[in-house]
């Protein structure tokens, strides 16, 4: 076996030795067991270097074994920046290290370290700007060096499956360590429905890897107790391997497990996320072989991996001695323990270590880690502590391949930060702690600055009961806050020992050394937020988990500002990086199809998006576009055409005040509108800007059917509800856009066709005149019929319940066969309406167009007291018009048809633009609509259009309609 560092059972509670896995790391075959992470398997195989650092490309290995650091980010075939100490080892994985040039073992970018003196903090702000060309020369080089993992943009787009699920709970407990277990148990016993969320594959937290007693039995006994009790407790749903990545307002909690993104709404929350062990600062504290004491314990107990052979421990608390005992039990040699404390308290753990003959150097620190092979440490220099952050000279070198750091903790308070908790500095424990929690959020355990195991469990119980009470359960009494927290002497206030020769790292992610921070402060960036932004401390993938507290300590000392008044920089979501795929899930943004969609496809339609809908643009091949549109136009002008107008907005306005309501919503007057007639509707907003149009059909004294534009109907509906919330008129508004579908049958032969399928309606010009509306049946289908003139021919819009859409289409197509009926699409309709000079709101109007500019004062009622936008319209009516929408043709018929939004110029000044233009098949020349200068709007006035390539052509203002100016055809 190549896993030379594997320890025998019972070490390795998470691995299953009956099943081996093997994968590739940088061309090397790595074998491990089921249950291993990539990182634990690599360590087992003596592969300590896992990545190259961000700036200096220094070798880096595991630091926390808890998914908390950037050192173990690796590249998978389809995933960059993958946490190797979390990701399970699987057969066939292709794992590569990140951020190296050339080979991993001999990274060419290591040369950056040689010139580190020339790259002080924020160096890029201070140079490369000597001349303008400097940065254009250097930027590509700097840019090429940046980043960590890579994506392969050339790779086939693979779309992984991700989905989402909602969850609900009375109490959500986040963290399955002793505090979380106690909280879950207490809340459940109080009757709450509890969801317990644990990011690791097994419950237990520190009970799974830490040592609380000399004998090393308390943790597993305690965990066993919890497991037994929980198994018999109703109401706890346990989700292991599940990451809670944030806490949002109103206890809205994202959870990630596998390919599923859960969104949990909990009545109350217990955050029991524990603490994050903090590193010490000394020279070469970043190299492989220097790890957290808890990381060594995790390797040993969880994965059965020996973290080295000979260790030196940098200690400042009792936990270091528990770790020392673990190392000894695992067969390692502990060469020495350098304890920063001047005197080491004689606790049972210390006594047990002393009893094993381990050298304990009180009042000593590590001044540097030594290395020989450049990819792993080979020793440590121990020296006496002479003051805060200073070590005496003449340190003693001790050979070792492992240095454990056990100097303190910091609360894993990210989730509490997200929820809006305030943290303050606790002088007794030299740690930050939550001092103000939001309602219905509780903290328990070491995130709450409680460390003694018994106290942690009591704190968990307290929080669990408090949360159950918050969730509305009957809880007799909630215990008072824990006073004996066991947090004193856990964390050293200044485990920071800068070295003359540097490489004493404060931030491993960003390769920031002690003096980078000192120099940043000296440059004037002397508060933690400014220093973070200037030096980038805490901005890397681990988001300051190991650097934030150190930088606060440094800023406090350098500036003389009391640390008690300071806070770490704001912690923002997510707690753990979330995959885009998780967040996206299965996007539900359906495109809408009309009831006749399949008929269009059968007829060879090219579909186009129209608002949320798909509509036929034209019928025929893409290559045949122009011809197809012209043929469709011709069919309508000379014969009969059929267009699907289902996407048009439809609103049923009913009630005694229906007419008054429309009077206020639209510019026209509706109170005297006869039943059986339609009227144009034009909507403006408060600023007098045109926002929509359509027609209002009066079917009854108290019933109007109002149409709106395809893309505007939802906003129109909202506006109607918005205004009537204030007016309180007796009307009911229903958006029936999707309930009804419709067609427009148009052309000189439309009556002839319709007569064949319409038996109960008098279709004669007298019985059903232009602008008339009727209800009846078409081919037996109940229908609303309107005589409209949008395309400028005799025509009927027929609106029927959506379920009958296909039948209506088929009946009309069949009935029209002898007349040669032809379906036509949106493109032909655009031509037809433009020939008639009908505007399309939002194409021929923009965000500022008013009624006067659009030349539509005819749509204003003269004698009504109010409509939305009326006052603005009145005021603007008295102002000089800066621009006006006019019809135009081209002076020189040889000029090309301008495109929509080509500019109208007066001299070189922009005064307007073309909004619609087409080479009209019916009129035989270019016709269009354009905004021209207010002074140039009289028919016959010439104006300049700037077309493709900057060419200027001349337009001539022309009265419209361009086609059938007397409107005889539509009124047939």
């Amino acid at each position: 076996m190549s896993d030379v560092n594997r320890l025998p059972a019972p070490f390795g509670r998470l691995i299953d030795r009956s099943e081996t896995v093997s994968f590739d790391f940088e061309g090397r075959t790595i074998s491990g067991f089921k249950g291993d992470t990539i990182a634990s398997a690599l360590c087992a195989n003596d592969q300590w270097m896992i990545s190259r650092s961000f700036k200096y490309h220094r070798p880096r290995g595991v630091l926390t074994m808890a998914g908390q650091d950037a050192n173990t980010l690796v590249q998978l075939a389809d995933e960059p920046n993958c946490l190797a100490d979390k990701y399970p080892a699987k057969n066939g994985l292709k794992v590569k290290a990140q951020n190296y040039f050339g080979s991993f073992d001999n990274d060419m970018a290591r040369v950056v370290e040689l010139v580190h003196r020339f790259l002080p903090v924020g160096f890029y702000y201070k140079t490369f700007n000597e001349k303008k060309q400097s940065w254009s020369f250097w930027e590509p080089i700097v840019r090429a060096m940046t980043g960590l993992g890579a994506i392969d943009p050339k790779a086939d787009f693979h779309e992984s499956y991700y989905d989402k699920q909602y969850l609900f709970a009375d109490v959500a407990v986040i963290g399955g360590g002793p505090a979380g277990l106690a909280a879950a148990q207490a809340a459940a016993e109080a009757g709450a429905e509890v969801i317990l969320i644990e990011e690791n594959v097994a419950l237990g937290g520190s009970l799974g890897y830490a040592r609380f007693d000399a004998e090393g039995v308390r943790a597993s006994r305690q965990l066993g107790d919890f497991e037994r009790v929980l198994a018999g407790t109703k109401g706890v749903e346990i989700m292991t391997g599940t990451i809670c990545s944030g806490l949002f307002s109103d206890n809205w909690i994202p959870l990630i497990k596998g390919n599923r993104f859960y969104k949990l709404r909990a009545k109350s929350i217990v955050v029991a996320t524990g603490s994050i062990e903090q590193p010490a600062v000394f020279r070469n504290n970043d190299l492989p072989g220097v790890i957290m004491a808890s990381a060594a314990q995790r390797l040993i107990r969880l994965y059965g991996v020996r973290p080295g052979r000979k260790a030196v421990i940098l200690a400042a608390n009792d936990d270091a001695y528990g770790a020392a005992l673990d190392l000894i039990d695992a067969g390692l040699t502990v060469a020495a323990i350098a304890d920063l404390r001047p005197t080491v308290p004689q606790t049972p753990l210390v006594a047990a270590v002393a009893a094993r003959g381990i050298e304990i150097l009180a009042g000593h620190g590590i001044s540097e880690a030594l290395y020989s092979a450049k990819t792993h440490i080979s020793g440590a220099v121990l020296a006496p502590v002479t003051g805060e952050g200073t070590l005496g000279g003449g340190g003693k070198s001790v050979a070792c391949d492992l240095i454990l750091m056990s100097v303190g903790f910091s609360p894993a308070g990210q989730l509490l930060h997200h929820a809006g908790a305030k943290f303050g500095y606790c002088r007794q424990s030299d740690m930050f702690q939550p001092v103000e929690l939001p309602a219905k959020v509780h903290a328990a355990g070491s995130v709450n600055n409680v460390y003694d195991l018994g106290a942690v469990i009591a704190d968990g119980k307290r929080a669990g009961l408090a949360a159950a009470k918050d969730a509305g359960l009957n809880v007799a009494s909630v215990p008072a806050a824990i006073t004996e927290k066991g947090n004193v002497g856990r964390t050293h206030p200044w485990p920071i020992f800068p070295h003359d020769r540097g490489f004493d790292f404060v931030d491993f992610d960003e390769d920031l050394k002690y003096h980078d921070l000192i120099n940043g402060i000296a440059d004037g960036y002397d508060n933690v937020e400014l220093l973070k932004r200037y030096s980038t401390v805490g901005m890397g993938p681990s988001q300051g988990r190991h650097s934030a507290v150190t930088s606060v300590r440094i800023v406090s000392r350098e500036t003389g500002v009391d640390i008690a008044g300071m806070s770490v920089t704001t912690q923002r979501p997510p707690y753990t990086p979330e995959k885009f795929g998780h967040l996206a899930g299965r996007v539900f943004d359906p495109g809408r199809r009309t009831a006749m969609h399949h008929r269009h496809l059968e007829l060879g339609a090219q579909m186009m998006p129209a608002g949320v809908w798909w509509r036929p643009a034209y019928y025929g091949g893409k290559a045949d576009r122009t011809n197809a549109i012209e043929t469709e136009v011709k069919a309508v002008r000379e014969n009969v055409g059929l267009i699907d107008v289902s996407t048009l907005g439809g609103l049923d306005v009913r009630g005694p005040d229906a007419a008054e309501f429309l009077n206020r919503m639209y510019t026209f007057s509706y109170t005297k509108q006869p039943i059986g007639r339609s009227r144009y509707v034009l909507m403006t907003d408060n600023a007098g800007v045109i926002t929509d149009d359509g027609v209002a059909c009066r079917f009854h004294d108290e019933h109007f059917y109002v149409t709106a534009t395809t893309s505007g109907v939802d906003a129109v509906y909202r506006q109607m509800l918005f205004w009537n919330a204030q007016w309180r008129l007796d009307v009911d508004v229903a958006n029936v856009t999707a309930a009804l579908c419709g067609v427009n049958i148009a052309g000189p032969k439309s009556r002839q066709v319709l007569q064949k399928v319409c038996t109960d309606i008098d279709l004669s010009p007298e019985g059903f005149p232009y602008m008339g509306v009727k209800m009846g049946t078409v081919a037996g289908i109940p229908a609303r019929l309107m005589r409209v003139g949008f395309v400028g021919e005799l025509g009927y819009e027929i609106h029927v319940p959506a379920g009958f859409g296909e039948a209506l289409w088929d009946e009309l197509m069949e009935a029209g066969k002898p007349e040669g009926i032809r379906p036509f699409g949106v493109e032909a309709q655009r031509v037809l309406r433009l020939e008639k000079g009908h505007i399309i709101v939002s194409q021929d109007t923009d965000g500022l167009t008013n009624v006067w500019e659009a030349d539509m004062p005819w749509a204003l009622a003269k004698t009504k007291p109010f409509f939305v936008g009326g006052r603005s319209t009145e005021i603007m009516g008295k102002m000089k018009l800066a621009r006006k929408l006019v019809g135009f043709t081209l002076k020189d018929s040889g000029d090309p048809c301008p495109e929509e939004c080509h500019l109208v110029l007066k001299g070189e000044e922009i005064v307007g633009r073309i909004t619609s233009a087409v080479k009209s098949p019916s009129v035989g020349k270019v016709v269009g609509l354009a905004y021209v200068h207010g002074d140039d709007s009289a028919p016959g006035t010439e104006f300049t259009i700037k077309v493709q390539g900057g060419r200027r052509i001349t337009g001539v203002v022309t009265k419209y309609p361009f086609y059938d100016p007397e409107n005889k055809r539509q009124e047939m």
Partner: protein
Amino acid sequence: MIPAFVPLKILRYGFRKKYPAERFIPKQQDLKKSYDVVIIGGGGHALACAYYLAKTHGITNVCILERGYLAGGNTARNTAIIRSNYLTPEGVRFYEQSLNLYRDFSQELDFNILYSERGHFTLAHTDAAVRTSRWRAEVNKQLGVDSELIYPDEIARLCPHLNMSDHVRYPIMGALYHPPGSIARHDAVAWAYARGAAKLGVEIHQQTPVTGLIVENGTIKGVQTSRGTVYANRVMQAVAGNTSVVAKMAGFRLPIKTIPLQACVSVPLKPFLDQIIVSGSLHVYVSQSSRGELVMGGSTDPYGLYGTRSTLDFKEGLLGHMLELLPMLGEVKVMRQWAGMTDMTPDFSPVMGLTPVKNYYIDSGWGTWGFKATPVCGMTMAHTIANDSPHDLIKPFYLDRFVDYQQVGEKGAASVGH
């Protein structure tokens, strides 16, 4: 002649034993009793204004009052995109001047702001968006701004990573391509102006909230602060996110709604995305920073709020659309999200210049487009304060335009596409 690419200035760091520290702004002093000009707010706009007041107009008895830390508001929170491809001639001229000042910034201020031309693509997924893109392109070109409407073949060539398939919810039909579109290090812009202003004598006071304004007979006389009263001949407010609150202290109302705008970044990736991609229909914009992070944002939140909380909905919506544009990013991870407060105006243009209170000036309404305007705001507001008369470039942005029906409609160029 030394070639331009030799980074001379860096040598002094390597060859000196002791780091030659230079405070970019002096340690905080006591407040004086009075100043010629007091500027409320210590963000990019305020600092730029102070710099140009001192440099161009010789007014150096200037005091900046910042409630928190320097440039910690929207200057710190924006996504650092610079462009001038606006829709109205007024907007285009204004932002083009800003872009020109940015181009020379690193040399003029002797501070490398990592200004980087990346090319800016506003994707169009509908006929209407194609039309608006053409409109903007035509206006831009007429005013000398490099801008072009391009179609799918060209988009695919210039942005090879985009999903150009027809089989998505919103196929890409065209794009407004603006080659000068750039990104820069946003904090550095503010720091550079702070250093430049401080060198000329401007005082910068952090952690000094303004608690009230002293207005007598319609004229500003001074401000009350957490550290006492300060008198001033002229006062400007440049406090994005709190504009209405401060204006209320001065006694006038603004047509501004304050709405959060959120953004997020990915874990650093090796550079692969050189362009700035914006999609109005999909409510997405993305670029890759000099640190390798994908910097992403969308439209403003659906409701107003004076607060900068993050939401989950924002990320879900944004990343859903992001994967439609760049489907190969499914396994890439979001590292951090945050929010800023945007002061939205009805016409998506700023409100700048004189106010109803004499000698009190306003730089506001910066919605989602404030960072790119930082230099030109500083320049024009300094002119406005020095002369008690608005600079020509900002005359269209006067407050009473909403009463006069003289709006400068930039919605088509501003929403999402910051």
